């Protein structure tokens, strides 16, 4: 299923945040969305699910498999949220409820969306925890978020997002809050899940290094507009826009551009 964003404009209390964004996600592909903070990349992700802050105004169109999302009634929108389009947030320390068990946060929306009973939900949850490579999935089910490390928490958050087999995953800076040493593991996991489940992934990040490791398509945003879109290889090697070039120039040399075979390695390792 594809997700198409066309002419998306957002303003908050009269202040323009997005000035007409066009993006298109396809299944089995990771679409990287880059740009510095304040460029509107996070807002784009939130707008898809109608999660913009109090007092925002939205125009344009967001369609999922041809179905318009922006005008959905609250009840129908809730069916899409978590059910067909899921989201992973930047900081797993704050995006998981600190007082509810991992199991509870994994099964609650499953039971709501898929209408399955407690036992079935539990079985699926444990299976999911295994899939995101959490050691001791059975015990992990009954534990609380603060009992996991940052990287493990983000894996839990990914499991929560994937619980109802969504078609589209929006990952908002999923590795920014994590230690460098565990970032690669989480990215590898995302890439693998994308290939295995045929997910369409929107990977929002300011880190072009992250982008070069996993993205198929890359879009670059500046001041609420997409200034460049294209296949990763082309955008990162031969940037057409001056802003993309300046972003690339600000990277240390070792991280610049995709190293040959990097993506292939990740793919084989995970699947």
């Amino acid at each position, binding site marked *: 299923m594809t997700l198409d964003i066309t002419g998306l404009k957002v303003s908050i209390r009269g202040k323009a945040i997005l000035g007409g964004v066009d993006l298109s996600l396809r299944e089995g592909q990771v679409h990287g969305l880059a740009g510095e903070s304040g460029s509107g990349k996070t807002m784009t992700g939130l707008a898809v*699910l109608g999660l913009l802050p*109090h007092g925002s105004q939205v125009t344009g169109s967001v369609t999922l498999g041809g179905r318009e999302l922006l005008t959905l009634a609250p009840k129908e929108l*809730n069916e899409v949220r978590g059910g067909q389009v*899921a989201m992973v947030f930047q900081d797993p320390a704050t*995006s998981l409820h600190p007082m509810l*068990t991992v199991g509870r946060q994994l099964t*609650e*929306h499953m039971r709501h969306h898929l209408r399955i009973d407690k036992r079935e939900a539990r079985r699926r949850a444990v299976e999911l925890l295994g899939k995101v490579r959490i050691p001791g999935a059975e015990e992990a089910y009954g534990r609380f978020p603060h009992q996991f490390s940052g990287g493990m928490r983000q894996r839990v958050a990914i499991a929560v997002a994937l619980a109802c087999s969504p078609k589209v995953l929006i990952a908002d800076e999923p590795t920014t809050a994590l230690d460098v040493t565990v970032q690669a593991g989480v990215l590898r996991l995302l890439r693998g899940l994308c290939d295995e489940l045929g997910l369409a992934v929107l990977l929002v990040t300011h880190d072009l290094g992250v982008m070069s490791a996993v993205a198929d398509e890359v879009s670059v945003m500046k001041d609420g507009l997409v200034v460049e879109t294209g296949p990763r290889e082309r955008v990162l090697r031969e940037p057409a826009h001056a802003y993309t070039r300046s972003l690339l120039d600000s990277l240390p040399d070792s991280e610049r551009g995709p190293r040959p075979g990097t993506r292939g390695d990740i793919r084989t390792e995970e699947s």
Partner: protein
Amino acid sequence: MTFVLTNLVPGDPVAANLGQRALGDPAIVAQWRADHGLDRPLWQQYALHLQGLLHGDLGTSQQSHRPVSQDLAEFVPATLELAGAAILVSLVLGVAFGVIAALRRDRLSDHTLRVLSLVGISVPTFWLALLAFYVFFYRLQITPGSGRVDAALGSAPAVTGLQTVDALLAGRWDIFTSAVGHLITPALVLALYTIGLLTRFTRSAVLEVLGQDYVRAARAKGLPGRVILFRYVLRSALVPIITVAGLAFGSLLSGTVLVEAIFAWPGVGQYAYKSATTLDLPAVMGVGLVVGVVYLVINLVVDVLYGVIDPRVRLQ
């Protein structure tokens, strides 16, 4: 602590307790002092006081000429019933109003609740009590007047000392309804301040939680609004709310002094007032002790509730 406090104060209990004529007679004064142990040095008084405490003896009230513990046993349950009912009402209404205000932020109902809760914390309790007494009892005659229960009904055998509970235990429905009828107005008057306080506080606590990442994440999961409110938002907001509610119980106890006076509620508030104005030191110390115990219990309850609500506290 109570002992130090009551002894630091310069008032003379002898003067407060004996009439002018008796004061003129040194023999009577000396006798009275000896009766109450006031002729000994301060440290001996304190030692005696501590010794008494260990045996559960709080001394003898200079006013009622009965052991203070006996007086307290009679008056404490009445106040606990009143204050307990008031804190229950405050929690239910205060939290409900606060949640409504937060969810309808910046709309008419939010502004209205803000003004109402500020009025609630601005009303002089003693005046409101008098007004309620006048309107509901004297004018409209829809509430019973003073006291805890209709004297004509007698009373249920004392088990807990709480009239409502005792009546239920004894199966006396008539006494129960009478007790609730007597309780309702003073409890509401007493609760008003706390309702206002908790409304304001709940509103800001809920607003803070609503801005948290995990609430947005819960919305992104497509959970219905009421599940998010009750399971995600209220759960977190309850931690600061019960902290404040625990503190508010103290101000509630303060209020009982004023409310009990109007409704002739036979509780500790009235007892404290009588003992304070007559400088009945053993009685004042007894009240202080009760208050201290109540604070300890409240703190304990709040701590237990933290553990129930927040697993991180429990698992530490």
